[in-house]
Every structure is written in structure tokens, then in C-alpha cells.
């Protein structure tokens, strides 16, 4: 191995790479190794999943029956707000970043990310951000209680004192995402192994490349939005206050200009994972690779142009509503292309049903159902009935839970043997899958009907007619919640088991890609010499 005199940024490993990582907490605090940082992101995300999940269960207990059950309306609003913020910014985004950190360097044959120290800082911002956010629960006065969408003037003029802590924590989360995205773009552009041209790039890498550009484009807009909020609250500006010449609707425009691309940020890396898993377990090359790449890019671009579909009932002019309706419906086309390509990959394949594949198939069915409710929501007149009702809650949980979360879980099952060198129990994995699917559908399918029947969202208490379906939802939520404990057990067992690692390099029979050419568990440093791709 040619050991040219190279300058390594990795302080803890300035000798040669035959020493392992440092021991103890210092390893984790100061690591610049992409595998360690990936592990940190994923562990953080898992912890936040349970915290956000407990909040969801509190919500569902309160909604088990009409009348007050366990919490008062003020606290309930805090739970819905924090649950949303934690799941979006504390679970899905860090988990996707964790997968990116672990896999992208290995998939492109790079030794590490382009900016390893920045990588460390990107992660460590998150625990600080979330400590600040969650500490608002302990402050006197309410924690943020205005929904994860924090519309003005509810959050500016009428927001509690903790709102300012919320703003600062959003800034930190945003900075973390921006730095991570920067790192990913530079890594993918500049550190691909020789011969890995753009159209040889694995789909997961493509999808993260597009996502990283989206992050770089819209996280600063979110930062601007919350800064304007801070200025309105404390510096007598009136961006969102009609009294001083401002406009509450401006808030919604700025927020959703960030908010809509944000939902594509939450799903696109998951699409990439699906494009890795489905061909592997169908033992057939992904159908329509080029179309998939173009569809991903098209989804990202069109995603910038549809934000006002969150604002159809605000009193927009007719022409604006028409344009945004047409543009929103248009997004269904590239998304549909992706679904059809996945199905075509399965068609005439040779399929087995290991746990990653189960979650991928669950995603395929249920994300598509979520897509259908999205199509219904795009029709403006119908949206007048759906908006701010449980129909919307059903839609976004189908695309985020059985969409994003399932892709993350599938990815973990898929790559866990590579990370730890041990195979998990397929029996337990299957149990996790079936309980999750049953719980998830029981929890969220009835919500479509609740919304259609007229139940608004973000209410702690409801008229008697909605009782039965709400009770099903609560039961389903608990089943889903407890199913994740199986997942926790599987992960802990895989990571900490005393048994000898016994998994091959390739792990899965038809796995293709550079990451399957290295040993399992993956050595601390990989691809220190770049492979040549033919």
C-alpha cells in the first residue's frame, strides 16, 4: 500500500491506521471518522425516536376519549408541537445524515468525508440544540405550543417566552444540516474513486446529492424566517404584524418556501435506500436507472415551486390557487415514475423476503397510499374540506412513517450486518415488521375518515361522534410504539453481543456496490487507497 506523506485531519489517528480508535467517551466526542459519526447520528436519532414517540403516545392517550383524559389543552398543544419538531428535525433528518455518513464514502470508494472535523461539529450541534429545545418543557411558562409550523402571529405576538429558545435551537439544527450538506456535496463531487462517473453513482448517493443541494438552498431560508420572528418579537420590526405594515401571510410564504422542499429532504434519501434494497433482494438491476436519476432531480426542482398548496384557504387569488394546484399535481408524475420503476424491478426478478425487503415492500405499498391522499389534497376545492383536518394528519403520517421511517429501518437492517459483522435474528425482524405494519395502519388509516367526517387537527378533545375511530388510532399507535422496542433490542444485540462476527463481506446474496467488497464489520478505515472502477 503506498503510504504517500499525506496530511490527515484526523488528530486521533495521526499514526498509522493499524491502531484502532481511542477508547472511552473521548473517542465519541472528538471522532472525525465517518463511521463513528454515522453511528452517533443514528444513536441520537434512535433516542429521539423514543422521546418523540412517548409524546405521540401522550397525545393518543388524551385522544382516547372525549373529555379531558390526562393532560390539559395547553400541555397538549406543547406535545403536538414538540412531537412534530422532534420527529422531523431530531429523528428523520439525523438518521438520514447518519446513513449518509456511514455509507457514502464506502459507496464511492473514498476513505472518509471531505471535511471530517466539520463532520464532527455537524453532529455535536444536535444534542445541544435538542437539549435547548426540550429544556423549554422545564421552564416556567409554556413550552412552544404553536404547532411545528409556528405560524405568526400566534408564535410572534402571542408566543410564550420559551419561543426564543425554540428559535435558537432551530438555528443550531439548521447550521448542523447545512454543514452536513456541504460536506456531502464536496465529498461526492471530489472524492469519487477513479472511474466512478456520474451515471455509475449508486442511487443512494445520487439521492443524497440532490437532498444536500435542497438543504443548502432552504435551511438558510428557515434561518431567515425564525430570525424575522425574533426581530418581530424583540426588535419592534413588523414583518408579520399588520399593525406595523407587515403581513401574517408573509410568514406562511417564507415558512412553506422552506417547508415544502423540507418534506422532499425527508424522503429523497429514503428513495435512494429503496433503490439499493429492492434490486438486491429481487436479484435484478434497478429498472430505469437514468429515469430514476432524472425523476429525483425533477422532484427536487418542482418541489420548490409548489409551496402555496399549504395555504389554499388563506384567501389567495384564483389564478394563484390554479397555478399551485397544477404544479402540485405535476409532482405526482416523477414520483409515480419512481414507484413504477421499483415495481418493474421486482417484475421477473428472483425475490426473497429478508427483513430489509419486507420494510421496502411495506414502504412501496403504504407510501403510495400516502401519495394518493396527497393527490386528493392537491385539488383546491376538495382541500377546502381536508385542510387542517385529520385527513392531512393521515396523509403526512403515511408518507413520513411508512415512508421515511420505514426506509430508515430498512436501511438499518440492510447495513447493520456490514456495520457490526453480526446477522440479526430474521424471526425478530419479521415480527418487528408485521407489528409495525399492523400498528401503523390501525393508527393512521382511520384518521382519513376522521378528517373527512370533520375532525380538525391539533385539538385535545373532540365531539362524541369521533370516539370509536380515535380509539382504534390509539390502540394502533401503542402497537406501533411497542413494536419499535423489538427494533431497539435487535440493534443493541447486534452491537453489543459478545459473539464473534460471522458475516461475509457480501452479506446479501446479490448485493452490488463497493460497500460489499470490504469485510464485515467494516474496518475503521476503508478505501485508503482508491479502487479503480471499470
Amino acid at each position: 500500500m503506498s503510504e504517500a506523506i499525506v496530511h490527515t485531519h484526523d488528530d486521533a489517528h495521526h499514526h498509522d491506521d493499524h491502531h484502532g480508535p481511542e477508547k472511552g467517551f473521548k473517542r465519541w466526542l472528538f471522532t472525525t471518522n465517518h463511521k463513528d459519526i454515522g453511528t452517533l447520528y443514528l444513536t441520537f436519532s434512535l433516542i429521539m425516536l423514543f422521546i418523540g414517540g412517548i409524546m405521540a403516545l401522550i397525545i393518543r392517550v388524551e385522544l382516547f376519549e372525549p373529555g379531558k383524559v390526562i393532560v390539559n389543552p395547553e400541555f397538549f398543544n406543547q406535545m403536538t408541537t414538540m412531537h412534530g419538531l422532534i420527529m422531523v428535525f431530531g429523528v428523520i433528518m439525523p438518521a438520514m445524515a447518519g446513513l449518509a455518513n456511514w455509507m457514502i464514502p464506502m459507496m464511492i470508494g473514498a476513505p472518509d468525508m471531505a471535511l471530517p472535523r466539520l463532520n464532527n461539529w455537524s453532529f455535536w450541534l444536535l444534542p445541544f440544540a435538542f437539549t435547548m429545545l426540550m429544556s423549554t418543557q422545564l421552564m416556567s411558562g409554556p413550552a412552544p405550543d404553536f404547532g411545528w409550523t409556528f405560524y405568526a402571529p400566534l408564535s410572534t405576538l402571542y408566543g410564550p417566552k420559551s419561543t426564543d429558545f425554540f428559535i435558537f435551537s432551530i438555528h443550531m439544527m439548521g447550521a448542523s444540516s447545512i454543514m452536513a450538506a456541504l460536506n456531502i456535496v464536496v465529498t461526492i463531487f471530489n472524492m469519487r474513486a477513479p472511474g466512478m462517473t456520474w451515471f455509475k453513482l449508486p442511487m443512494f448517493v445520487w439521492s443524497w446529492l440532490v437532498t444536500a443541494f435542497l438543504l443548502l438552498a432552504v435551511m438558510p431560508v428557515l434561518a431567515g424566517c425564525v430570525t424575522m420572528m425574533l426581530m418581530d418579537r424583540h426588535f419592534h420590526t413588523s414583518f408579520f404584524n399588520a399593525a406595523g405594515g407587515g403581513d401574517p401571510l408573509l410568514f406562511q410564504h417564507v415558512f412553506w418556501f422552506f417547508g415544502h422542499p423540507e418534506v422532499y429532504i425527508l424522503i429523497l434519501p429514503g428513495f435512494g435506500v429503496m433503490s439499493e434494497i429492492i434490486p438486491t433482494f429481487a436479484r435484478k438491476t434497478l429498472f430505469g436507472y437514468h429515469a430514476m436519476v432524472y425523476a429525483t432531480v425533477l422532484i427536487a426542482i418542482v418541489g420548490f415551486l409548489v409551496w402555496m398548496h399549504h395555504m389554499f384557504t388563506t384567501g389567495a387569488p384564483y389564478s394563484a390557487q390554479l397555478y399551485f394546484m397544477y404544479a402540485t399535481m405535476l409532482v405526482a408524475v416523477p414520483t409515480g415514475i419512481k414507484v413504477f420503476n421499483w415495481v418493474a424491478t421486482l417484475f421477473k426478478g428472483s425475490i426473497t423476503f429478508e427483513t430489509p425487503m419486507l420494510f421496502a415492500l411495506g414502504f412501496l405499498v403504504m407510501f403510495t397510499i400516502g401519495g394518493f391522499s396527497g393527490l386528493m389534497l392537491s385539488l383546491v376545492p376538495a382541500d377546502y374540506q381536508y385542510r387542517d383536518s385529520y385527513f392531512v394528519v393521515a396523509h403526512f403520517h403515511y408518507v413520513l412513517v411508512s415512508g421515511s421511517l420505514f426506509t430508515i429501518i430498512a436501511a438499518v437492517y440492510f447495513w447493520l450486518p456490514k456495520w457490526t459483522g453480526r446477522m440479526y435474528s430474521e424471526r425478530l425482524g419479521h415480527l418487528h415488521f408485521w407489528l409495525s405494519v399492523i400498528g401503523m395502519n390501525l393508527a393512521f388509516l382511520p384518521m382519513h375518515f376522521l378528517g373527512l367526517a370533520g375532525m380538525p387537527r391539533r385539538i385535545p378533545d373532540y365531539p362524541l361522534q369521533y370516539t370509536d375511530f380515535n380509539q382504534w388510532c390509539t390502540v394502533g399507535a401503542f402497537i406501533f410504539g411497542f413494536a419499535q422496542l423489538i427494533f431497539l433490542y435487535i440493534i443493541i444485540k447486534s452491537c453489543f453481543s459478545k459473539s464473534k462476527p460471522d458475516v461475509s463481506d457480501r452479506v446479501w446474496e446479490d448485493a452490488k456496490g463497493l460497500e460489499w467488497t470490504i469485510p464485515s464489520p467494516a474496518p475503521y478505515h476503508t478505501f485508503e487507497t482508491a479502487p479503480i472502477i471499470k
Partner: protein
Amino acid sequence: MHYIGRISLFVCLILFAIAGFATPGINMPVGVSPISKQIYDLHMACFWICCVIGTLTFGVLFYSLFKFRKSKGAKAAHFHQHIGIEILWTVIPFLILVGLAIPATIVLKKIHNTDESALTVKVTGYQWKWKYEYLDQGVSFFSTLATNQDQINNKTPKNEWFLLEVDKPMVIPVKTKVKILVTADDVIHAWWVPELGVKQDGIPGFINENWIYAEHPGIYRGQCGELCGMNHGFMPIVVEAVSQEDFKQWVQNHQSASAVDNTNSYKTFTREELVTLGKVEYEKSCAMCHQNTGEGVPPTFPALKRSRVVTGPATANIKFVSQGVPGTAMQAFGDQLDDKTLAVIITYTRQAWGNDKLTEKHKQSIVVQPIDVKNARLSKK
């Protein structure tokens, strides 16, 4: 076996979904307005199209999962692209979308056309109630949740229209196009009545318009459709559609110069009368925030029990309630309630929950008469 599990689960989902849509009261209501009917038709059309696309897609998917299992000896084919089929499944969905967009455009145009309304009602959202003003008829009133706190706190059984009942509904004549102007006083609210097919945001500082039309007489209920603070779930909407004659009569009964009717300002009442009436009015207008127990939800909604203001000088107490506290949820109730109602509420609070002992200890009077309220309003700071 996986595929059996999958297929049965999927079939169950479909059956449940169809059952759900077929069950009255659980699907979107057809409603009583031409617009609500058209929205319903659009919604069902989209739903069926999605069912067809879903059946086709999932059909191919499940067929593949069944037929091409490795365990049954399937060998993978090698094709991995086909430009023709990519074009096909781009163009066909696009055409389906165009097919959906056309009726949606037409219905939307109708919604935007508020011409030829015979009646205009201005709807203002407040934290946490609605105000209805019939601008041409001079009728103006607040509409508050009528469900008692005791039902919400599970102390008494819940009645049929729990959380969907108000003290004063909005009354409209049947078969009449009614234009509604929607705005808000504090934060963004939304006026939503599913059976009338209408949802319109009320934004402070702005005015939006929409229209409603009831084919049949009846009572149509809805809820606020935009998170507006703690009691977002407790500000329902009730619209009562009555015959033209009944509507005329109702207008005559409710006409007055302002929302507040001060004909009782010069009457005096005994302490017992004030307290009895006051308890009812307090639980209607104040208990949502300050609770039936007077303990409030501190610090957002202070406790009235043992409160300095409530057990202190009467004039200051009256001013507090009447003028509100700008920048907080404590509204200027002097604009919403008449002298007598304020008097009974204030008297009630000054002696409830043990406050009577404190008020007496502070050497302040418990009893507040309507005339005291009137005088306090007229005297300035």
C-alpha cells in the same frame, strides 16, 4: 407465508377503506350546498381514480411477489430499461391528472364567485369564540361554546352535541346565497362548516370572502380550522338555516345597535340572584380559561381563587374585566358582555372558592350591581 400475509392485509385495508367511505357520517358529507356537493363529487372521483391506479400498480406488485419468488425457483431476468415504457407511464398519469384538473378548475371558479348574494355576514374569529355581524340588518353577537366545563372534565355526562354547541348560532335563510366576510381579532382562525362546503381563514388585519348556501333547513356544525392557541378545539360553529319568514322574525328579535344590550343596567339584584346567575355566566364565558374551580392554568391563565384583583376594590376589578389586558388572551369583555352579565360574573367571582372571606378581609364589597359596572365603564383611567 409472506405473500399470503401481505395480500390478506392489503385486502383488509381495501375493504376497510371502502367500508369507511361507504359508511354515512364517516366519509366527507355531501352537504346541503351546491358547492359541498360538487366538492364531494370531485373528492369521490379522485378517490376512485386512485383506487384504479392503486389496484393496477399493486396488482402487478403482488403478482410479482407471488410469481417471482426465488423459493419457487424463479430466475431473474436481465432487462433493466425500456424508454418506451418510461414514456408511457409518464404520459398516461399526466393525462389522468389533466382529467382531474379540469373539474377542479371549474368548481374553484364557482367558489370564487360571490355575486348576487342576498345577505352578507361578517365573521370574526376571536380567541376563543366567533362574532357574527349582519352588516345590513344591524345584528351583532358573539357565539361561544355552550358545553359546560364539567362535561369536559368528566364530572357530568356529555350531551349529544358535546363541543359542537353554541349559545347563539348564526342564523341564515334557506335557499339564499349568503356572502361571508371572514377576519380575525388576534391570531389566525378558520371558519369551517363541512356540510356547507366552506373553510375560510380569518387573518388579523385582512378580510376574506366566501359564500354559503343551504338547500334545506337544518343545523350545520363545524369547528375552528386553524390552530389558534389553547382552546382551538373549543370554539365551534353552528349555522342554523331557517325559512325566510323565520329569518325575518329572528332579525327583528335580535336587532340592536351593538352586540351588547344594556337594557338591564339600572336594575338591582339581591346577592343570591347575582351569584346564581353569575355562576352560569361565569362557566359560560370565563371557565374555559379560568376553570370552574377558579384555579386557572397558571401562568397563562391566572387563578381567580385568592386573586388580589378579584378580592380587591370593585372598580378596579370591573375595569380589569371590562378593558381586558392588551397583548394577552384576556379580552375586553366590556365589548362583548352587557352591564348585567358583567355584574353577575364579577359578583360571583368575588365570593366563590373562599374568595368571600378574602374580599371581606380586604374590606371590599362583594356585591357589584349593573349600575356599578356602567359607572366604572364611563369613568376613565
